[in-house]
């Protein structure tokens, strides 16, 4: 007997309701199932994303390079890159100087860690406006895994939240769902750095007695996974200290210009400095 159209529709709805109920009642198993279903789709779609990104980039570059004052733009970009590089180096040196002031000679180098990294291109933004995230063109095949830290020469960018074979999604430090333990470089006070809805970052749980000032640099403390100690997060722009509060909080201006993100480094592992002498592995930079 032929099933009526409304009967087929009812069966479809029932199946769907069953699936959704399973996803809600068994969130862990449901998520795992969705991940397994999604993995080949992610692999398949990472190619059109990279193709669109390459097309977009080449059109943008053509437009910016040849039509809109090519030389000025090129020079500007080079100088911006140079400034970011120098900022990164300056920050590294400052961090070293602080360490050398505080620690005995033996501890100076042993505490310092050098991460092994994989270079990746930013090929897109998060598919919704609800998350400040970017899509990278490197995935599990290149050693990228969830929870790994992402940096540029200027500082911390975010952490990997999803990784397929050929692509990965990074949640930026300016997203309210992201939290990184930070360290005020001058005072050595620790706190939690979270994103804000306005696109900046906020450092919470700074001790009340801390002498934190506007302009102080905040770096990663190395306590949470993904980031080694001393990666610059941002600069304190304002401090909030209200009567009766147990902690202070501060608003940060992120060090990285997220609107100009093109290439990033994914930290695939943090190794002690003496292990680095053998040189980086194939496909990695250090």
């Amino acid at each position, binding site marked *: 007997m032929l099933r009526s159209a409304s009967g087929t529709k009812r069966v479809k709805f029932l199946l769907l309701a069953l699936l959704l109920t399973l996803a809600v009642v068994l969130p862990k198993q449901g998520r795992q199932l969705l991940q397994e279903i999604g993995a080949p789709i992610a692999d398949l779609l990472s190619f059109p994303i990279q193709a669109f990104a390459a097309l977009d980039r080449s059109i943008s570059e053509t437009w910016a390079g040849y039509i809109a004052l090519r030389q000025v733009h090129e020079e500007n970009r080079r100088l911006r890159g140079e400034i970011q590089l120098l900022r990164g180096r300056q920050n590294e040196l400052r961090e070293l100087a602080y360490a050398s002031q505080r620690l005995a000679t033996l501890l100076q180098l042993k505490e310092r860690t050098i991460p092994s990294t994989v270079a990746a291109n930013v090929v897109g933004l998060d598919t919704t406006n609800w998350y400040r995230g970017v899509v990278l063109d490197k995935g599990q095949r290149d050693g990228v895994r969830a929870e790994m830290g992402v940096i540029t020469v200027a500082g911390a960018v975010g952490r990997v939240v999803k990784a397929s074979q050929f692509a990965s999604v990074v949640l930026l430090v300016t997203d309210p769902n992201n939290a990184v333990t930070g360290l005020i470089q001058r005072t050595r006070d620790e706190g939690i750095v979270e994103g804000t*809805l306005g696109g900046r970052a906020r450092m919470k749980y700074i001790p009340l007695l801390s002498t934190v000032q506007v302009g102080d640099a905040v770096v990663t403390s190395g306590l949470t996974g993904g980031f080694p100690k001393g990666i610059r997060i941002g600069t304190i722009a304002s401090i909030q200290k209200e009567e009766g509060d147990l902690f202070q909080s501060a608003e940060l201006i992120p060090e990285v210009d997220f609107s100009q993100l093109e290439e990033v480094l994914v930290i695939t592992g943090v190794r002690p400095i003496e292990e680095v002498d053998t040189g980086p592995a194939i496909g990695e930079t250090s």
Partner: protein
Amino acid sequence: MKKGLLAVLMVALVPIQTTVLEHVSIGGIRPDLCLIVVCLVGVMFGEVHGMFLGLALGFVQDIFSAGELWLNMVAKGMIGFLAGFVSRHLANATPGAMLTLILALSFLSGLVFLVVERAGAGLLDALLGVRLLVLPQAAFDAAVGTGVYWLVAGRTRRADVLSGRRISLR
């Protein structure tokens, strides 16, 4: 042909959303192409097609988003269903009606995200989320969606929708 079109939508829409659309963002807000397409499919082809396309596109969106792997899928599925359901009761699918419909559905989708993603946040944060994200997103989606509807839906199709005849995907 129509199934081919669906396949093209599935493969091209999310890559376009994630790569090219930043050039048309206003104040950091990009239109949600998937939501717009799901709404239009719901209106033109009925709630079942709207819902299933919503589930599929939402799932693909979730794969390349930092959020939970089910959130867009459920939200878009619901939007596709509601678009079809509401349009069934629309006397006249004028641009004004489409604008209102997409505005309302995008706002609803935004509220779902707000509740799920900012559940622990206070009232002030929630209101800020509505002002900074939900409302601008809904307005942008409604404007783009109405424009796309006007361009895509030919006179015959509009007449079909108006007369209550659904367009079959088969």
